Protein backbone atom coordinates (compact mmCIF):
# COMPACT_ATOMS: atom_id res chain seq x y z
CA UNK A 1 0.00 0.00 0.00
CA UNK A 2 2.92 2.31 0.63
CA UNK A 3 3.87 2.13 -3.04
CA UNK A 4 0.45 3.47 -3.97
CA UNK A 5 0.94 6.48 -1.69
CA UNK A 6 4.22 7.36 -3.41
CA UNK A 7 2.81 6.82 -6.91
CA UNK A 8 -0.27 8.95 -6.37
CA UNK A 9 1.52 11.73 -4.51
CA UNK A 10 4.13 11.82 -7.29
CA UNK A 11 1.32 12.12 -9.87
CA UNK A 12 -0.31 14.87 -7.83
CA UNK A 13 2.88 16.90 -7.32
CA UNK A 14 4.24 16.48 -10.88
CA UNK A 15 1.00 17.50 -12.57
CA UNK A 16 0.61 20.31 -10.03
CA UNK A 17 4.01 21.50 -11.21
CA UNK A 18 2.67 21.23 -14.77
CA UNK A 19 -0.12 23.67 -13.86
CA UNK A 20 2.40 26.27 -12.72
CA UNK A 21 4.99 25.95 -15.50
CA UNK A 22 2.93 25.40 -18.66
CA UNK A 23 2.26 28.50 -20.71
CA UNK A 24 -0.95 27.30 -22.33
CA UNK A 25 -4.00 27.71 -20.03
CA UNK A 26 -5.69 24.62 -21.51
CA UNK A 27 -2.63 22.51 -20.62
CA UNK A 28 -2.71 23.98 -17.12
CA UNK A 29 -6.38 23.05 -16.71
CA UNK A 30 -5.87 19.47 -17.92
CA UNK A 31 -2.83 19.05 -15.64
CA UNK A 32 -4.96 20.25 -12.75
CA UNK A 33 -7.57 17.58 -13.55
CA UNK A 34 -4.93 14.82 -13.32
CA UNK A 35 -3.50 16.38 -10.15
CA UNK A 36 -6.96 16.31 -8.56
CA UNK A 37 -7.41 12.67 -9.60
CA UNK A 38 -4.18 11.82 -7.74
CA UNK A 39 -5.46 13.76 -4.73
CA UNK A 40 -8.75 11.82 -4.83
CA UNK A 41 -6.76 8.57 -4.83
CA UNK A 42 -4.93 9.77 -1.70
CA UNK A 43 -8.28 10.53 -0.04
CA UNK A 44 -9.48 7.01 -0.85
CA UNK A 45 -6.26 5.59 0.62
CA UNK A 46 -7.10 7.44 3.83
CA UNK A 47 -10.47 5.61 3.92
CA UNK A 48 -12.32 8.81 3.01
CA UNK A 49 -14.24 7.23 0.15
CA UNK A 50 -17.03 9.79 0.07
CA UNK A 51 -14.67 12.77 0.02
CA UNK A 52 -12.60 11.10 -2.72
CA UNK A 53 -15.63 10.61 -4.95
CA UNK A 54 -16.88 14.13 -4.26
CA UNK A 55 -13.42 15.44 -5.15
CA UNK A 56 -13.61 13.69 -8.53
CA UNK A 57 -17.21 14.69 -9.24
CA UNK A 58 -17.08 18.31 -8.08
CA UNK A 59 -13.47 19.36 -8.75
CA UNK A 60 -12.28 17.18 -11.62
CA UNK A 61 -15.77 17.18 -13.11
CA UNK A 62 -17.79 20.34 -12.59
CA UNK A 63 -15.21 22.95 -11.60
CA UNK A 64 -12.63 22.04 -14.24
CA UNK A 65 -15.27 21.89 -16.98
CA UNK A 66 -16.24 25.40 -15.92
CA UNK A 67 -12.58 26.49 -16.15
CA UNK A 68 -12.14 24.95 -19.61
CA UNK A 69 -15.43 26.50 -20.72
CA UNK A 70 -14.27 29.97 -19.68
CA UNK A 71 -10.82 29.49 -21.26
CA UNK A 72 -12.44 28.56 -24.58
CA UNK A 73 -15.10 31.28 -24.27
CA UNK A 74 -12.50 34.00 -23.73
CA UNK A 75 -10.28 32.42 -26.40
CA UNK A 76 -7.15 32.90 -24.27
CA UNK A 77 -3.89 32.48 -26.13
CA UNK A 78 -0.72 31.16 -24.59
CA UNK A 79 1.23 33.80 -22.78
CA UNK A 80 3.84 35.29 -25.03
CA UNK A 81 7.46 35.33 -24.03
CA UNK A 82 7.57 38.72 -22.45
CA UNK A 83 10.60 40.11 -20.66
CA UNK A 84 10.47 38.39 -17.32
CA UNK A 85 10.51 40.38 -14.13
CA UNK A 86 13.49 38.68 -12.50
CA UNK A 87 12.92 40.30 -9.12
CA UNK A 88 9.36 38.97 -8.94
CA UNK A 89 10.48 35.54 -10.17
CA UNK A 90 13.28 35.33 -7.58
CA UNK A 91 10.90 36.52 -4.87
CA UNK A 92 8.36 33.81 -5.67
CA UNK A 93 10.95 31.04 -5.83
CA UNK A 94 12.66 32.15 -2.60
CA UNK A 95 9.29 32.30 -0.83
CA UNK A 96 8.49 28.74 -1.96
CA UNK A 97 11.90 27.41 -0.90
CA UNK A 98 11.65 29.09 2.52
CA UNK A 99 8.17 27.62 2.96
CA UNK A 100 9.32 24.07 2.12
CA UNK A 101 12.37 24.33 4.41
CA UNK A 102 10.21 25.56 7.27
CA UNK A 103 7.70 22.77 6.62
CA UNK A 104 10.46 20.14 6.70
CA UNK A 105 11.92 21.51 9.93
CA UNK A 106 8.51 21.63 11.63
CA UNK A 107 7.61 18.11 10.52
CA UNK A 108 10.99 16.68 11.55
CA UNK A 109 10.32 17.82 15.12
CA UNK A 110 6.67 16.67 15.11
CA UNK A 111 7.08 13.35 16.88
CA UNK A 112 3.38 12.47 17.14
CA UNK A 113 3.12 12.33 13.37
CA UNK A 114 5.85 9.70 13.10
CA UNK A 115 3.53 7.02 14.42
CA UNK A 116 1.73 5.03 11.79
CA UNK A 117 -1.97 5.39 11.22
CA UNK A 118 -3.87 3.49 13.93
CA UNK A 119 -5.97 0.53 12.86
CA UNK A 120 -9.70 1.01 12.72
CA UNK A 121 -11.78 -1.10 15.07
CA UNK A 122 -15.34 -1.29 13.88
CA UNK A 123 -16.60 -4.24 15.80
CA UNK A 124 -15.33 -3.46 19.29
CA UNK A 125 -17.29 -0.25 19.51
CA UNK A 126 -20.16 -1.21 17.26
CA UNK A 127 -22.92 -0.36 19.75
CA UNK A 128 -21.71 3.20 20.31
CA UNK A 129 -21.05 3.86 16.65
CA UNK A 130 -24.11 2.17 15.19
CA UNK A 131 -26.57 4.60 16.74
CA UNK A 132 -28.81 6.14 14.09
CA UNK A 133 -27.34 4.14 11.22
CA UNK A 134 -29.56 2.09 8.88
CA UNK A 135 -29.42 -1.69 9.10
CA UNK A 136 -27.43 -2.13 5.90
CA UNK A 137 -24.68 0.12 7.26
CA UNK A 138 -24.62 -1.73 10.58
CA UNK A 139 -24.20 -5.03 8.74
CA UNK A 140 -21.29 -3.62 6.79
CA UNK A 141 -19.67 -2.45 10.01
CA UNK A 142 -20.10 -5.94 11.48
CA UNK A 143 -18.22 -7.26 8.43
CA UNK A 144 -15.33 -4.90 9.29
CA UNK A 145 -16.07 -2.65 6.32
CA UNK A 146 -16.46 1.09 6.61
CA UNK A 147 -19.90 2.47 5.62
CA UNK A 148 -18.24 5.79 4.92
CA UNK A 149 -21.12 7.57 3.19
CA UNK A 150 -23.56 6.74 6.00
CA UNK A 151 -21.14 7.98 8.64
CA UNK A 152 -20.35 11.24 6.85
CA UNK A 153 -24.06 11.75 6.20
CA UNK A 154 -24.91 11.17 9.84
CA UNK A 155 -22.30 13.71 10.93
CA UNK A 156 -23.41 16.34 8.44
CA UNK A 157 -27.13 15.98 9.08
CA UNK A 158 -26.91 15.84 12.88
CA UNK A 159 -23.89 17.80 14.14
CA UNK A 160 -23.66 20.18 11.18
CA UNK A 161 -27.29 20.58 10.18
CA UNK A 162 -27.36 24.37 10.54
CA UNK A 163 -24.10 24.92 8.56
CA UNK A 164 -25.57 22.67 5.86
CA UNK A 165 -28.58 24.98 5.52
CA UNK A 166 -26.29 28.02 5.45
CA UNK A 167 -24.21 26.43 2.67
CA UNK A 168 -27.39 25.75 0.71
CA UNK A 169 -28.30 29.45 0.95
CA UNK A 170 -24.73 30.34 -0.06
CA UNK A 171 -25.04 28.22 -3.21
CA UNK A 172 -28.33 29.92 -4.07
CA UNK A 173 -26.84 33.37 -3.51
CA UNK A 174 -23.79 32.56 -5.66
CA UNK A 175 -26.05 31.27 -8.46
CA UNK A 176 -28.05 34.51 -8.43
CA UNK A 177 -24.84 36.53 -8.18
CA UNK A 178 -23.36 34.83 -11.24
CA UNK A 179 -26.51 35.52 -13.26
CA UNK A 180 -26.42 39.19 -12.28
CA UNK A 181 -22.68 39.49 -12.98
CA UNK A 182 -23.11 37.94 -16.43
CA UNK A 183 -25.75 40.41 -17.55
CA UNK A 184 -24.46 42.63 -20.28
CA UNK A 185 -25.67 45.94 -18.88
CA UNK A 186 -25.35 46.69 -15.20
CA UNK A 187 -27.82 49.44 -14.39
Amino acid at each position, binding site marked *: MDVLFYIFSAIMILFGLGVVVSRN*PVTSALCLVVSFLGLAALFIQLDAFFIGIVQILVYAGAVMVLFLFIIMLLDLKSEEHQPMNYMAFAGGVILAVVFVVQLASVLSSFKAGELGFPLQQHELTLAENAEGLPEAAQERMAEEKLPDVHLVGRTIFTHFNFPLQVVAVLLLVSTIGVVILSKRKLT
Partner: protein
Amino acid sequence: MVTLNHYLFVSGLLFTLGLTGVMLRRSLIVIFMSLEMMLSAANLSLVAFSRFNLVNGLPNYNGQALVFFIITVAAAEVAVGLAIIVALFRARQTTSVDDITSMKY
Protein backbone atom coordinates in the same frame (compact mmCIF):
# COMPACT_ATOMS: atom_id res chain seq x y z
CA MET B 1 5.63 2.81 6.58
CA VAL B 2 3.62 5.83 5.51
CA THR B 3 2.98 8.09 8.47
CA LEU B 4 0.97 11.20 9.12
CA ASN B 5 4.06 13.31 8.45
CA HIS B 6 4.27 11.95 4.89
CA TYR B 7 0.75 13.15 4.15
CA LEU B 8 1.37 16.51 5.81
CA PHE B 9 4.55 17.01 3.78
CA VAL B 10 2.83 16.16 0.49
CA SER B 11 -0.02 18.48 1.40
CA GLY B 12 2.49 21.25 2.20
CA LEU B 13 4.25 20.67 -1.14
CA LEU B 14 0.96 21.00 -3.03
CA PHE B 15 0.22 24.20 -1.08
CA THR B 16 3.66 25.58 -1.97
CA LEU B 17 3.08 24.80 -5.65
CA GLY B 18 -0.19 26.73 -5.50
CA LEU B 19 1.53 29.62 -3.74
CA THR B 20 4.28 29.68 -6.38
CA GLY B 21 1.65 29.70 -9.11
CA VAL B 22 -0.10 32.68 -7.55
CA MET B 23 3.21 34.53 -7.20
CA LEU B 24 4.71 33.77 -10.61
CA ARG B 25 1.94 33.50 -13.16
CA ARG B 26 0.45 36.49 -14.96
CA SER B 27 -2.82 35.02 -16.21
CA LEU B 28 -5.82 35.46 -13.89
CA ILE B 29 -7.25 32.05 -14.85
CA VAL B 30 -4.06 30.20 -13.92
CA ILE B 31 -3.82 32.16 -10.64
CA PHE B 32 -7.36 31.06 -9.88
CA MET B 33 -6.44 27.40 -10.61
CA SER B 34 -3.48 27.71 -8.22
CA LEU B 35 -5.86 28.98 -5.54
CA GLU B 36 -7.94 25.83 -6.02
CA MET B 37 -4.77 23.76 -5.57
CA MET B 38 -4.04 25.50 -2.25
CA LEU B 39 -7.59 24.78 -1.03
CA SER B 40 -7.21 21.10 -1.97
CA ALA B 41 -3.90 20.89 -0.13
CA ALA B 42 -5.64 22.07 3.03
CA ASN B 43 -8.30 19.40 2.42
CA LEU B 44 -5.64 16.69 2.23
CA SER B 45 -4.18 17.53 5.63
CA LEU B 46 -7.69 17.72 7.14
CA VAL B 47 -8.53 14.23 5.85
CA ALA B 48 -5.17 12.87 7.03
CA PHE B 49 -5.79 14.22 10.55
CA SER B 50 -9.33 12.85 10.50
CA ARG B 51 -7.97 9.36 9.72
CA PHE B 52 -5.19 9.73 12.30
CA ASN B 53 -7.44 10.75 15.20
CA LEU B 54 -9.77 7.80 15.61
CA VAL B 55 -12.95 8.30 17.64
CA ASN B 56 -14.33 5.02 18.97
CA GLY B 57 -12.25 3.17 16.39
CA LEU B 58 -13.68 5.15 13.47
CA PRO B 59 -12.17 8.16 11.66
CA ASN B 60 -13.09 11.55 13.10
CA TYR B 61 -15.90 12.53 10.75
CA ASN B 62 -16.02 16.15 11.92
CA GLY B 63 -12.91 16.77 9.82
CA GLN B 64 -14.44 15.16 6.75
CA ALA B 65 -17.61 17.23 7.22
CA LEU B 66 -15.41 20.34 7.20
CA VAL B 67 -13.78 19.14 3.96
CA PHE B 68 -17.25 18.65 2.47
CA PHE B 69 -18.16 22.25 3.32
CA ILE B 70 -14.85 23.54 1.95
CA ILE B 71 -15.47 21.77 -1.37
CA THR B 72 -18.99 23.24 -1.55
CA VAL B 73 -17.84 26.78 -0.79
CA ALA B 74 -14.94 26.42 -3.25
CA ALA B 75 -17.36 25.40 -6.01
CA ALA B 76 -19.50 28.48 -5.31
CA GLU B 77 -16.36 30.64 -5.22
CA VAL B 78 -15.19 29.31 -8.59
CA ALA B 79 -18.54 30.13 -10.20
CA VAL B 80 -18.52 33.72 -8.90
CA GLY B 81 -14.82 34.25 -9.60
CA LEU B 82 -15.07 33.06 -13.20
CA ALA B 83 -18.12 35.31 -13.73
CA ILE B 84 -16.05 38.25 -12.46
CA ILE B 85 -13.18 37.28 -14.81
CA VAL B 86 -15.60 37.17 -17.77
CA ALA B 87 -17.01 40.59 -16.84
CA LEU B 88 -13.46 41.93 -16.51
CA PHE B 89 -12.50 40.50 -19.90
CA ARG B 90 -15.53 42.23 -21.46
CA ALA B 91 -14.46 45.55 -20.03
CA ARG B 92 -10.69 45.35 -20.69
CA GLN B 93 -10.12 42.58 -23.29
CA THR B 94 -7.37 41.07 -21.16
CA THR B 95 -6.93 38.70 -18.22
CA SER B 96 -3.29 39.51 -17.52
CA VAL B 97 -2.68 40.95 -14.07
CA ASP B 98 -0.03 43.28 -15.53
CA ASP B 99 -2.68 45.15 -17.48
CA ILE B 100 -5.20 45.41 -14.66
CA THR B 101 -3.66 47.85 -12.24
CA SER B 102 -6.49 50.31 -11.54
CA MET B 103 -9.74 49.74 -9.68
CA LYS B 104 -11.79 52.03 -11.93
CA TYR B 105 -10.98 53.55 -15.30
